[in-house]
C-alpha cells in the first residue's frame, strides 16, 4: 500500500522540482536581462528584433486568418440563433467575453507556442549539442543574456501584439458575419463597445504577460537542458511543447477562476 503512494509522491515531487527549476531559470533570465552591459544590450536588442520578426511579424497573416475564420463561424451562427429570440444585442457580449477575453489570448498563446516555441527549443537544443553554448560561455558571453533574454523579450512583445491582431481580426470578421446576416454595422459596433470595458483590456495585458513568459521561458529551458547528443533535440522539443501547452491551459483556467 505504501509503495504505490510513495511512487505517486515521488512523481509529484519530481514535477514540483521541475517547476521550481523552471521558475529559477525564468528569474535567472530576468536578472541576467537587467545585468546586461550597454554593449550587450545593443547585441541583445538586435537579436530581439530578429526574434520578433520571426515570431510576430511573419505570423500576422496566420493570426488574421485564424481569428477571422473563428469569429466568422461563431458570429454567423450566433446572429441566426439569437435573432430567432430577438437577442442579437448579446453579440457584442459574446465577442468580448468569448473571443477578446478568452479565446483570443488562449488561441494566440497556443499558436505561438506551437509555431515559435518549437523553433526556439529546437534551435537552443541544437546550439547546446553543437557546443555553441559552451563556446559562448568560454568567450565571456552569458548564454542567458545572448540566447534567453532576447527570446523571452520577443515572446512577451509578440504574444501581446498577436493577441491584439487576433482580437482586431476577430472583431472585424464578426462585423462581416453580422452584416451578411442582416445586422447593421452601427448596431454591431454599439453592442461590442458597450460590452468592452477597461477590465477586458487589463485582463488581456495580464494574460499576454503570463502567456508570453510561458512561451518564452519553457522552450528556452528545455532547449538548454539538452546535453551532448542529437537524439536529445526532438525530446527537448516535445517536452517543451507539451509543458508550454499544458502551462497555457492551466494559466488560462486560473485566470478564469480568479477574475
Amino acid at each position, binding site marked *: 500500500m505504501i509503495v504505490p503512494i510513495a511512487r505517486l509522491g515521488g512523481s509529484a515531487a519530481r514535477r514540483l522540482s521541475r517547476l521550481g527549476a523552471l521558475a529559477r531559470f525564468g528569474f535567472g533570465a530576468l536578472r541576467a536581462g537587467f545585468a546586461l552591459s550597454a*554593449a*550587450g544590450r545593443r547585441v541583445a536588442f538586435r537579436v530581439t528584433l530578429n526574434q520578433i520578426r520571426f515570431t510576430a511579424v511573419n505570423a500576422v497573416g496566420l493570426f488574421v486568418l485564424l481569428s477571422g475564420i473563428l469569429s466568422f463561424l461563431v458570429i454567423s451562427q450566433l446572429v441566426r440563433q439569437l435573432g430567432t429570440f430577438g437577442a442579437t444585442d448579446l453579440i457584442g457580449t459574446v465577442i468580448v467575453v468569448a473571443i477578446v477575453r478568452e479565446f483570443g489570448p488562449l488561441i494566440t498563446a497556443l499558436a505561438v507556442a506551437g509555431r515559435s516555441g518549437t523553433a526556439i527549443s529546437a534551435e537552443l537544443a541544437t546550439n547546446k549539442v553543437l557546443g555553441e553554448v559552451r*563556446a559562448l560561455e568560454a*568567450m565571456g558571453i552569458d548564454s542567458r*543574456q545572448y540566447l534567453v533574454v532576447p527570446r523571452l523579450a520577443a515572446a512577451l512583445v509578440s504574444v501581446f501584439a498577436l493577441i491584439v491582431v487576433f482580437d482586431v481580426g476577430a472583431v472585424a470578421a464578426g462585423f462581416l458575419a453580422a452584416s451578411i446576416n442582416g445586422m447593421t454595422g452601427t448596431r454591431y459596433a454599439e453592442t461590442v463597445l458597450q460590452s468592452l470595458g477597461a477590465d477586458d483590456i487589463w485582463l488581456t495585458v495580464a494574460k499576454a504577460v503570463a502567456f508570453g513568459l510561458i512561451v518564452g521561458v519553457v522552450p528556452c529551458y528545455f532547449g538548454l537542458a539538452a546535453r551532448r547528443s542529437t537524439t536529445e533535440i526532438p525530446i527537448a522539443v516535445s517536452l517543451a511543447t507539451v509543458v508550454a501547452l499544458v502551462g497555457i491551459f492551466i494559466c488560462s483556467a486560473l485566470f478564469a477562476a480568479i477574475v
Partner: protein
Amino acid sequence: MTAPPLEFANVALPARRPQALSLTVPAHHTVAVLGDEASGVGALSGFALGLERPAAGSVKVFGTVIADLPERERLAFRRRVGYLPAGDGLLQNLSLRDNVALPLRFGSAAAPPEIEGRVNVMLAQVRLAPAAARRPAQASEEERRRAAFARAMAFDPGLLLLDQPFDGVTVRTAAELLEVARGGETAEGGRRTILVTGHELPEAIRRRVETVYRLSREGVLEPERA
C-alpha cells in the same frame, strides 16, 4: 615574480585516473598536450576556463582560479583567454564575420566602428575576408577553422587554448594558422602563450611547438620532446 599564464596543480582528470596532472605553461611558449579520447586531454581547456571544475587540484590562469570567481567576474576574466573549442563552436545562424565580431560586440566597450575595424584586421590576418559573409554551413571546413581562430583572437588575448585546432585543415594551413595565433615576435618576447590539446599533431607543426607532452590513459604526463 609574475604568475605563469597557465598552471595545472595536481588536477584530477575525469574517470578517476590514479595520477593527478601538474603542468605549467611558461609565458610566450606553445605547449601541446596530446592523448587519446580516454586520456581526458579534452577536459584541460574546460578546467582552465572554469567551465568545469576538477574533482581535485586547481588550475590557475594568470594566477587566478577562474572557477572560483563570481559569475560576472568569471565571464569578464574569460575574455583575457582565447579559446578554440573542438568542432569550432561557431554559431550556425551568424555569418563567419558576425561570429568573429560577436565577442567584441557583446563584451567590448569600444565604439562600433572600432570593433568593425578590429574584425577587418582579424579577417585579413586569417585570410578569410572573401568568405566572411558566408554562414558556417555554407563555408568549407578550412574557412570555419580560420573563422574560429579569428574569433579566439578577437580580444588579442595573452593566452590561447586550442582544442584539436587543426582537424580538417592541411598541414600548410595549420602551420599558417599557428603562426598567426602565436603573434609577432618582439624584443620583449611578445608571442602569445598557447596550449594545444588534441589526439595528434603533424610533424611540421610539432617542430613549431616548444614542448609536446603525451598524456596516457592512466593520467601520466610525459614530455615527448623537450
